[in-house]
């Protein structure tokens, strides 16, 4: 499936992405980044100021939603409160003048898939949250669409079963990482990075993506060029040859030196510091240390036998560091 996107004044600043058929795409980003607007435009509820949208081979930019062969699950489910479950699922078909026997057959099929068989006569007000979610999904499935546009639903398994191309919006980066085939990380109307969860996690393209994905977030150390490479607060930071070359190529700018908590280790030598916060989570412990380079969080597998105030050192391997231009936030190495 191919899509090219549009400029919406002040909301979306030039988006161009292509989604593969059968793919589960996630749009993730903080509030106000434009992901819901983008979704609305795919669905046809909003029109782009400029640019085109294609679904399959069709340019659907000027087509109303009902003609785009898509279905949508809304964040609030948006079930019709005055109709029962069966009528909710069948409403779209009714609007398209699908004959009654066919409508009923589809409702039965969808209800079976989502285990809604017993609930068909109930109204949304009489359903639990999870049941309402399934009805919302059922309504979308009843369209048998080319593209399903979702705002909030646990549908990875369902997606695998139906193989419908799906676009899913969330601000929750954990959901994004676990559910998506590919993720588009958005900020202030632009896509910062578009790739698989692995790409995004191991090679974030910008500082924003690096800090947004991953919890606890990546530690950032403000560093500047020094005689031997990079230094922060008078301490030299270890670099690989590749990183040095990249820095030279970029003109030795000021850099944000990023390290993920799991890439740091506790040792007897290295960067000195003392514990300020220790958070055990069961399988691992997150320890925050105060160091000459600022506050750094480390992930320690298992339990940590230490207390706040204890002195310890941090070590890491330079390959694990992510270097970002301090000005632009773009990845250098």
């Amino acid at each position, binding site marked *: 499936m191919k899509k090219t996107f549009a400029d919406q004044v002040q909301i979306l600043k030039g988006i161009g992405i292509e989604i593969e058929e059968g793919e589960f795409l996630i749009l993730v980003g903080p509030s106000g980044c434009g992901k819901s607007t983008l979704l609305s435009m795919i*669905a*046809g*509820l909003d029109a782009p100021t400029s640019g085109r949208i294609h679904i399959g081979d069709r340019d659907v930019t000027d087509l*109303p*939603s*009902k003609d785009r062969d*898509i*279905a*949508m699950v*809304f*964040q*609030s*489910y*948006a*079930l*019709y*409160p*005055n109709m029962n479950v069966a009528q909710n699922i069948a*409403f*779209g078909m009714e*609007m*398209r003048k699908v004959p009654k026997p066919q409508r009923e057959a589809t409702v039965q099929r969808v209800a079976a898939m989502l285990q809604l068989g017993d609930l068909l006569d109930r109204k*949304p*007000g009489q359903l639990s949250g999870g049941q309402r979610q399934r009805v919302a999904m059922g*309504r979308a499935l009843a369209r048998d669409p080319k593209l399903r546009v979702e705002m909030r639903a646990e549908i990875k398994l369902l997606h695998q079963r139906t193989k419908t191309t799906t676009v899913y919006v969330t601000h929750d980066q954990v959901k994004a990482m676990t559910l998506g085939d590919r993720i588009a990380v958005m900020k202030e109307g632009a896509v910062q990075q578009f790739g698989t969860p692995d790409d995004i996690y191991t090679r974030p393209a910008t500082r924003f993506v690096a800090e947004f994905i991953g919890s606890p977030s990546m530690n950032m150390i403000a560093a500047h060029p020094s005689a031997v490479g990079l230094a922060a607060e008078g301490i030299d930071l270890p670099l690989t040859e590749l990183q040095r070359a990249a820095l030279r190529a970029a003109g030795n700018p000021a850099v944000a030196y990023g390290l993920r908590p799991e890439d740091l280790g506790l040792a007897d030598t290295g960067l000195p510091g003392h514990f300020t916060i220790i958070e055990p989570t069961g399988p691992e412990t997150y320890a925050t240390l105060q160091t000459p380079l600022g506050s750094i969080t480390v992930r320690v597998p298992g339990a940590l036998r230490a207390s706040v105030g204890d002195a310890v050192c941090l070590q890491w391997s330079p390959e694990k560091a992510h270097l970002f231009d301090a000005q632009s936030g773009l990845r250098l190495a």
Partner: protein
Amino acid sequence: MLVTSLKDADQLRSGHLLSLPTAPTLDAWGKAWQSACTGVECGGLRPFFVNSMLMVVPAVLVSTTIGAINGYVLSKWRFPGSETLFALLLFGVFMPMQVVLLPMSQVLGWLGIASSIWGLIAIHVLAGIAPTTLFFRNYYVGLPDELLKAAMLDGASFWQNVRRIVLPLSGPILMVTLIWQFTSIWNDFLYGVVFSGADSKPITVGLNNLANTSSAVKEYNVDMAAALIAALPTLLVYVVAGKYFVRGLTAGAVKV
């Protein structure tokens, strides 16, 4: 009022306002309805009651319908001038009725419906558009936008949306508007007295005429009975539907 209307003529003469009727009778009621004199005619309130009914029912239905559509559009769509229109409607609600008397007389005259039931219906519909639109607009603002987007995605046209989704969810505000409109139009005196013709006077005018027509004796019991007859429909509306009125006014956003 009730007590006085059940008294007979003799007891009225004795002048004790608060005493209970010694021989309660419905004569006064019968007279008020059928034979009391209102100016030159002596047909009681019945013809006026009929006029009021003929005027109120269409006026309430038409103004409520128009208000509902207007309110829906104003609550969900932004178009150039929508905010100005809303401000003007607000102004229209608070405008004193007397302001339109002269211009309306002219317009009704041009339309050829002055001094008729049609004229009364017209003026009440027009006057009713402002408050009904306001009521519905403020209610529909609480209707979740996503509901209408879902319907749009499902392929519902504007009118299908209105008929299948918006209207079924409008119960509370429909009650409020119908009751409000019924009460204000039924109780209106000003337009009733200015724009009605000889045979199209509503009950408020009839009541006024009845109370001010006297021969030798002032028949308070008949006057009271007449007043009660005039008030009965609105009282009935409140008794039957009053709780829906309160419910409608206090209804929060529709929970989907």
